[in-house]
């Protein structure tokens, strides 16, 4: 409520009140405004640049060039993460591996986010039966351990980047369905959606112009968290030997390959692991920042 002096009580106190002009922030600025969001943006930007550089071949050394004179060298300026048993630069390998991991993560989250969000919106907005069918289906998917599920898919489809993405993405679909359905369900019964119905708006308009923008924040947060999880899941799959086949090596494969070397050349294990940790932390921070920014009330100073 605006503060009002007693003399204005009898008059129109709403229209004439002297107020500061309203200042608002855009999306990026409001993510940047939260501390977590700022950390997330910086880390994710660095991770993305590194990953793209790795895929584009812009690495300090060629990742797969073997140099017999530089076998198992420790950390140095020229080899930030040292070299492995074939004299390959671990840092360059990790950059390329990061690129591959990101590619799989983005593809899998695209699959999960698109299918899961759509499922969640439909389950939330449309009637009892549609909702029941979708929700029982997600219950079924929840009942299967996701790693087991991914294993089955990769075994059936054979290892490749796309298949890893499908294997990881499918496991996350029910989570998107659940997370999106809740707010849609609540919004459908909210006064402003009811007001829209009274005003004669079509169901499509209510769904896409009023409900969807309100759950976009939830979807964005979930996407960011899913990316972090997908990088981990991919590393897990690759560690089990179900990642994309050589010559491309993802971060998980590098960790897997170097585990036997860890006793004599710890850097071959620590380097790729560190990259995984940094990427996962970055996306988690970004998710927090998105959550803070997705509420329009926090966007006004």
């Amino acid at each position: 409520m605006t503060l009002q002096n007693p003399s204005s009580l009898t008059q129109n106190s709403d229209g004439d009140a002297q107020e500061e002009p309203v200042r608002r922030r855009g999306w990026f600025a409001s993510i940047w405004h939260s501390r977590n969001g700022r950390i997330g943006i910086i880390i994710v930007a660095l991770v993305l640049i590194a990953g793209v550089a790795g895929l584009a071949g812009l690495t300090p050394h060629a990742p797969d060039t073997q140099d017999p004179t530089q076998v198992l060298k420790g950390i140095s300026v020229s080899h930030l993460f040292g070299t492995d048993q074939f004299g390959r630069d671990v840092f360059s390998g990790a950059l390329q591996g990061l690129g591959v991991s990101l590619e799989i993560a983005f593809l899998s989250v695209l699959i999960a986010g698109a299918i899961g969000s759509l499922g969640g919106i439909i389950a939330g907005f449309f009637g009892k039966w549609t909702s029941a069918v979708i929700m029982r289906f997600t219950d079924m998917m929840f009942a299967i351990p996701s790693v087991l599920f991914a294993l089955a898919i990769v075994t059936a489809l054979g290892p490749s980047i796309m298949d890893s993405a499908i294997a990881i993405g499918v496991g996350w679909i029910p989570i998107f369905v659940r997370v999106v359905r809740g707010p849609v369900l609540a919004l459908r019964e909210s006064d402003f959606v009811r007001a829209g119905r009274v005003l004669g708006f079509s169901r499509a308009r209510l769904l896409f112009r009023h409900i969807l923008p309100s759950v976009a924040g939830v979807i964005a947060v979930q996407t960011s968290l899913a990316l972090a999880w997908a990088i981990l899941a991919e590393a897990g799959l690759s560690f089990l030997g179900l990642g994309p086949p050589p010559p491309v090596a993802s971060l998980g494969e590098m960790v897997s390959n170097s585990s036997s070397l860890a006793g004599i050349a710890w850097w071959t294990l620590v380097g790729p692991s560190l990259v995984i940790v940094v990427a996962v932390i970055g996306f988690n921070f970004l998710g927090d920042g998105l959550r803070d920014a997705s509420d329009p009330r926090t966007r006004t100073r």
Partner: protein
Amino acid sequence: MVDVALKAEQLAKIYGSRRAGAQVDALSDVSLTLTRGKTFGVVGESGCGKSTLARLLVGLEAPTSGSLAINGEQVHLKAKGDNRTLARKIQLVFQDPFSSLDPRMTVQRALKEILRVHGLHRDDLDGRIRELLSMVGLAARFAERYPHELSGGQAQRVAIARALAVEPEVLVLDEPTSALDVSVRAEIINLLVRIQDELELTYLFISHDLSMVRHISDEIAVMYLGRVVEAGRYDQVFETPLHPYTLALEQAIPVPDPEHERTRKVLSEAPAHVQVAKATAGCPYAPRCPLAEPICGEVAPVLQEKSDGHRVSCHVALRH
């Protein structure tokens, strides 16, 4: 000849399935006639079905039975699908202005959307929006605001402007002031009265507050457990209340006089089972009624005219 804007006949709404046996008669046999340009007040405590009545009239829910005519034209009330035709005739102002406005839309965008959907004022959308805002006493700069950047009173003004955007003939006001600060209530009421005069609107004003309804209404219906128990011109209902429930409501209005305050009787809470149970054979008010007689527990009274349009549904009142 009276100019009738809205006529509802025998509206009823039953919630719950027949099979489960857990039915609730939210509304039974409610008939209303709204005169054009006048205000019809509906009062009753929470759970009496007044909000259900509002939802049925604006098409948010379909009635179990009954019919509705606006301007003599029969309206087919269905709960699903688009009802753009109905929207142009009747609009609803919600109790809580903040939750009834889309938090992600500025006032400008929200109003523009309505005009676009209904194809109104295509050639001068911005001009019409300024006009709507000035109609509810808001400066044009408020068009750029988001709902959370408005005060309660301002938000309710926007909600009223939004309802007026489709140029309806009947406005259903579901407790439009009870979520507001006491100091702005009177402003909103005055605004509603002024708009009614300017646009010849017909109001259905719903409230639990008899004193509020008294100020604004030409005719009044008192509801109890989904039924109209008393109806008539406002002076009839207030000066010579017939139903014991109306009398109790009236006595519940606080009077700024400590002597009076000491002697007044306060209405007891309704027994919980009475509110949810399916209507029993007798009068629904009988369990709380100080005048209840044996017949009240056996035969349900019917709304009957006592004198010159003043109707009541009470065995005792009708006899005297």
